[in-house]
């Protein structure tokens, strides 16, 4: 009654009884999903622009890569393998979350975390086999920017997984936390999806162009 007074126009008819509705939802119905997708759109644009910068530099020089050998394939390619493999535990975790299967989520997140750690380790090696430095020339700068940008996302998402994973073990928990797990899995898919074109640009373009 007092509450009703806060909306000056008095409304008797009840249009919606929200009490019957659930207090969270998965997928594009959830607000978290839109937040995650928004961030993905922003970062996807950033990746696209960095790739644009890379090719802009390409149009400015005659030889490609300019006074440098193409990056060595092994670590980067290994990372493609690791990332593609990581999609499976990631998918499993997402499904587990949507089943509210806490045990499954715990196992899944630990596995994902291991994959993330492996990827970061290999990424560190990648930086040592680029055959160019950021201050060699504009090509080197673009390579480092592109790889650095992706590494940043990698690290943030692994950290995010770690925190969320810990919460899954320690609590306090309620079901809406499983939505966070499923969004975290979605974001990891984005990191994977972003890596494939970036790998093509960094490792294959210097050999094809």
């Amino acid at each position, binding site marked *: 009654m007092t509450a009703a007074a806060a909306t*000056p126009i008095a409304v008797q008819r009840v249009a919606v009884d929200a009490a019957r509705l659930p207090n969270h939802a998965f997928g594009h119905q959830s607000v978290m999903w839109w937040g995650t997708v*928004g961030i993905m759109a922003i970062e996807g644009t950033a990746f696209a622009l960095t790739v644009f910068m890379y090719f802009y530099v390409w149009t400015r020089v005659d030889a490609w890569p300019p006074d440098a050998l193409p990056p060595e394939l092994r670590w980067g390619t290994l990372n493609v393998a690791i990332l593609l493999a990581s999609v499976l535990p990631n998918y499993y975790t997402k499904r587990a979350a949507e089943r509210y299967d806490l045990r499954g989520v715990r196992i899944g997140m630990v596995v994902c975390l291991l994959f993330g750690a492996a990827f970061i380790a290999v990424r560190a090696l990648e930086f040592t086999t680029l055959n160019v430095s950021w201050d060699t020339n504009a090509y080197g700068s673009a390579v480092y920017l592109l790889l650095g940008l992706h590494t940043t996302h990698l690290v943030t998402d692994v950290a995010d997984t770690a925190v969320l994973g810990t919460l899954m073990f320690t609590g306090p928990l309620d079901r809406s936390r499983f939505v966070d797990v499923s969004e975290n899995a979605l974001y990891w898919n984005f990191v994977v999806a972003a890596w494939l074109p970036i790998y093509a640009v960094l490792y294959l373009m210097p050999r094809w162009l």
Partner: protein
Amino acid sequence: MSADGSAGTLAAHPGRDRPAYSARERYGGWVDEPGLLGALATIDHKRVGVRFITTAFGFFVLGGLLAGLMRLQLSRPDSTLIGPDLYNQLFTVHGTTMMFVFAVPIMQAMGVYFVPLMVGARDIAFPRMIAYAYWVYLFGGAMLFVALALNIGPDAGWFSYTPLAGPQYGVGKRSDFWAQLITFTEVSGLLVAVSVITTIFKLRAPGMTLNRMPLFVWALLITSFMIVFALPSVMMASTALILDRLVGTHFYNQAEGGDALLWQHLFWFFGHPEVYFIFLPGLGFVSTIVGTFSRRPVFGYVAVVLSMIATGFLSFGLWVHHMFATNVPELGKSFFTAASMVIAIPTATQIFCWIATLWTGRIVLKTPLLFVLGFFFILVLGGLTGIMLAAVPLDLQIHDTFFVVAHLHYVLIGGGVFPLFGAFYYWFPKVTGRMLNETLGRWNFWLFFIGFNVAFFPMHILGLQGMPRRVYTYAAESGWGTLNLISSLGAVLIVVSVLLFVINVVRSRRRGTAAGPDPWGASTLEWATSSPPPPGNFHPQLAVNGREPLWEPDGVSGRVDGLTNDPPEVLVTTLLDASPHHRRAVPAPTIWPLLAAIATTVMFVSSIFTPWAVVWGSIPIAIALIAWFWPTREEAAKHRKRELPA
């Protein structure tokens, strides 16, 4: 009702001598703790929104004062009042402030306050993120002016072209501060955009289908999408710039495969849409005010919406018209000319629709409408000079002259600031519960309108007479003295007018006549709650059944029951037809967004001096974010209590 109004006031302005429990009882978890801590921890989109707007307006005044100094210097030839070093900092900080720290943020801030109310939501999506965005923005803007005070004010222009802003010619740390300011405003702007989009898509009142959304909400939706896709461009550009300056990368070094034009492409790919971040919300204000003050729905709702969408898309296709004087291929030029001219059509369409609305309506000539009428006069003129600038040959003559200075102020002040002032007069009663003084309002308008035209119209002629932009002085025999003097006098009028506005706000906040929930007899949902709105906005939330809910006979179809205030819950609806889908508990107020913002600021500012700050600076940020995210036991318990049985 008045009791609730005052309860709202209490929540919106803590420290008033009223017992807090009354509000707590009514609004439960929506209410902030009293006192300073509560004020710093608040995530109420209305309190944050008011702060956002006030701060941005403060920067508007500061930026305006810098402009005043510039007009003082230029008011007579061969003036030695201000030297080139200071003058370059003045116009750079003026431009940077107005574009990055005033215009775009204040439009987003209006969205933060009004979008949830206009879509009938009880809260904004991601309220903690909004609080964080505000603090980051505040610290970033403050940093710019602290830098100016310390003679580290950026001095390479708001567009910061390389190589002038680059490592070799941008001596000292000035351009680094510029680049980091961009990063600050980026973070803030992008987070607000995501939050506004989500609010509009998922938190609309039941029954508010997409084609029933108020036009202002459409404007903010489109603007937010443009921000999401345009801001990253300047983010990458400024990152590359600071890397060039700090660690010796070569993005803009033509001798090592980089290119000065790369900067221009990246900057204007963002820079041109940015004009429309400022302009589209302005159009939203105009649609809102025209509708209310001609007592009828705006003519051609669909046409107006489609025009705004078209503007949004086209605005990404004309950045090169800022670069006609560089060697761009001929074909490209005519394409960008065409695009730059075509974008006039959607705007023209809206203007015709508004004139039609006024023509067929019953006009209420109050101050908000006055500012909109001023908008018509100024914006149309600015738009037409815009078409002139779109023509490559003509642009080659007037590009980078005072003609452009005139044009951009006609477009941005006409298209952005006049509607904004109209919106201030229109929504002030909603925010404070009191009306702004009408007489002062009319003085405010006429002084601004006359002062503006006196200040900026002569600049068209100056440009054609050959006066380039960004000159700190000019010789007497150039013959530019008289028009410059006139222009400076006009600037004085503008200053007086803005001063009147400030006085009006200060007086009316305390002594203005009480407004009541709906002083203008308007149609949108924000007028369905008390002025100022209570914490949680709507008790109960309403379901709508039409485009003009408060005008149409059965515009409000009923109320929403079953949402608790403790934990505070919002109703999440579906994307297209806004049918109820689930409840969502919004997080409790917390100090962590502020602490995270402080950590962010420390990192950004330190990274100007050492690249390693990016590494060690991110540790406190991570800690703050974890603390922000980590749920408390009571929260989790409350949520569990509200779960449906599996």
